[in-house]
C-alpha cells in the first residue's frame, strides 16, 4: 500500500476540491500532517462553521450569515435596479468597484444542458418571485460573455420582457487600459461589433 489508510482518505478528500490535482492533494495532506494539532483543528472547525452558519439570502440568493444578506438589508441600496450574476464571487468582483448601488440576484450557475443544468436548476423562480414585491425597474444581466452566459441572458430576456421590465446586458470588448496589439481576436471582434458612436 502506497499510503496509510487515513492519509489516503485525506488525499482523496482534498483531490475532490476544484483546482487540486493528485500532486497538490498529496502536498497539502503532508503539510496538514506536519502542522500543530490546533491549526489542523482550526481548519476543520472553520470548514464546519462555514457550512453550518452560512446560508443563502432569501432575497438575492447570495451567501449570507443571516436570513437576509447585508446588501439586501442596506436601505441605501437602490431597490429599482437588480444585477443578475451567475456566482456569489461575481458580487464580490462588482462590489470592489464601489460604484454599483443597486441590488443583486445570484443564479448559482448558467444554463448548460450538457451538465444537466436547465432554467429549473437555476434560482430563476426566486428572481421572478422578487419582482412581485420589489419595485424593480431595470435588470442588468451580468453573466460572462460565453455561449452559456449569453444564452442564459437571452433566456432571461425572453422570460422578463413580457413583464415590462427594462433588461440590459453588460458590455463586452476591449479591457480598459488594454493594448489593441495584444488583445486576442475574439475580444477585438466584439470591440468592433459593439462599438458606439461618439
Amino acid at each position, binding site marked *: 500500500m502506497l499510503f496509510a489508510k487515513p492519509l489516503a482518505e485525506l488525499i482523496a478528500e482534498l483531490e475532490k476540491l476544484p483546482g487540486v490535482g493528485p500532486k497538490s492533494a498529496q502536498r497539502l495532506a503532508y503539510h496538514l500532517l506536519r502542522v500543530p494539532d490546533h491549526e489542523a483543528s482550526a481548519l476543520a472547525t472553520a470548514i464546519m462553521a462555514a457550512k453550518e452558519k452560512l446560508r443563502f439570502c432569501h432575497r438575492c440568493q447570495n451567501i449570507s450569515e443571516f436570513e437576509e444578506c447585508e446588501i439586501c438589508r442596506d436601505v441605501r441600496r437602490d431597490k429599482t435596479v437588480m444585477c443578475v450574476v451567475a456566482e456569489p464571487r461575481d458580487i464580490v468582483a462588482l462590489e470592489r468597484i464601489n460604484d454599483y448601488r443597486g441590488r443583486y440576484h445570484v443564479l448559482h450557475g448558467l*444554463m*448548460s*444542458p*450538457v451538465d*444537466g443544468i*436547465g*432554467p*429549473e436548476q437555476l434560482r430563476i423562480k426566486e428572481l421572478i418571485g422578487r419582482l412581485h414585491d420589489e419595485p424593480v425597474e431595470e435588470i442588468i444581466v451580468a453573466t460572462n460573455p460565453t*455561449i*452559456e452566459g*449569453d*444564452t*442564459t441572458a*437571452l*433566456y432571461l430576456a*425572453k*422570460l422578463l420582457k413580457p413583464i415590462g421590465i427594462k433588461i440590459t446586458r453588460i458590455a463586452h470588448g476591449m479591457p480598459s487600459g488594454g493594448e489593441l496589439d*495584444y488583445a*486576442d*481576436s*475574439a475580444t*477585438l*471582434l466584439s470591440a468592433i461589433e459593439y462599438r458606439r458612436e461618439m
Partner: protein
Amino acid sequence: MVTHLTLLNFRNFEHLDQPISAGFTILAGENAQGKTSFLEALYWLSTARLLRGQRDSEAVRHGAAGCTAQATLEAGTTVAGALEVGARKKFFLNGASLPRAADIMGRIPTVCISMFDLSIVQGDPSDRRLFLDLELSALYPAYLRHFAAYKRALEQRNALLKMAQDRSVDPYAFEGWEEQLELHGAEMRRFRQEYLTALSTLAANVHAEMASREEVLSLRYFTKDSGASLAQTRHLDIARGSTQIGPHRDDVEVLIDGSEARLFGSQGQQRTAVISLKLATMEAWKDLLGVAPLLLLDDMLSDLDPVRRAKLCAVVSSRASQAVLTCTEATAAGSDILDIAQVLTVQNGTVRRA
C-alpha cells in the same frame, strides 16, 4: 516569409538550426529520415495542429520530455511553440506567451498539400467541412469565433434534445440555444459560401493549367435544409436526439464538368482536382493578404506521372513565392523548380546542403 527554423526534440530532430531560402527549398532523402517532420514543424507553427489530425504529443521526439519549434520571419518576428509531455502546448509571438493556442493561427500563412488531402474529394462530407473550417478559421478570426460558438451551442441543444425525450423542457430554453445556432450558423454559411464562390473560380483556373484534357472544375456549396427553422424541426430532432439541420450537416460538391468527382472522377482526375483546390486556397490567401502564403508540398511529386508532375511544377513555380517540397529524389522536382531551388538532404534527423 520564413527565414529560419529551429527545432529541439521535434519528431525526428534532436536539434536543428536551419536557414530557409526565400524561394524554393527541396528536402530530399529516403523515407522516415525527417523530411515530413521538417514540414510538420512549419505546419504546427502556422496552424497549432499537426498534419493528419495527429495528437500533439506525437510532435515530441521519442524518449524526450518535450519539444520546441521556432520560426523566424523576414521582419525578425519569431513564432514559437513548446510542448511538454502531459502538459498543454503553448505558443509564443516574439517571446510573449499567447493566451490560446488558436491565437497563433495565421501568423505564418501556410498552405500544405499532402496525400492526406485526397480525402477532400474522396472522403465523407465531414472531411470537406473540416477542410473549409480550417481554411476559414485561419483566414478569418471572426469565422473561428462563430464556428466555436456554433459547436458549443450545438452540443448544448443536442443535450437538451435528449433531455426532452424523457421529460418536458421549457420551450424558452430551446429558443435560447436555437437563436445562438441560427445566428452563428447563418454567419458560418455566409463565410463558407462567399469563400467557395471565390475558390471555385481560382480552382478552375489552376485546374485548366494542370488537367491533361480540357475539363472544368467547379465547387458548389450543398445544403439539405429546406428552409425550416430549428423551432419547426424541434419535435423531429427530439425523436432523433440530435440536430438534423444546419451548417454542421452541409457539404461541398467538387464537380468536374458538372458531375461529382467523388463518384465519377478517375484517380488521376481526383488527384489533380485536390491539388487545384489546394493551390486555389493559396491564391485566395494571396488575394486577401497581398502576398502568397508559404506552400508546403509533402511527397506529392513521386506518385504523379511525368506529364502531371511537370505541369504541377510549372504551376507551383509560377504561383508560389516561398515553397518547401519533399521528395525522395530531388530530380523529381523537375528543372522549373530545381534550377532555382535550395536542395537539402535529410538523413537520420540531420539536414545538410546537397
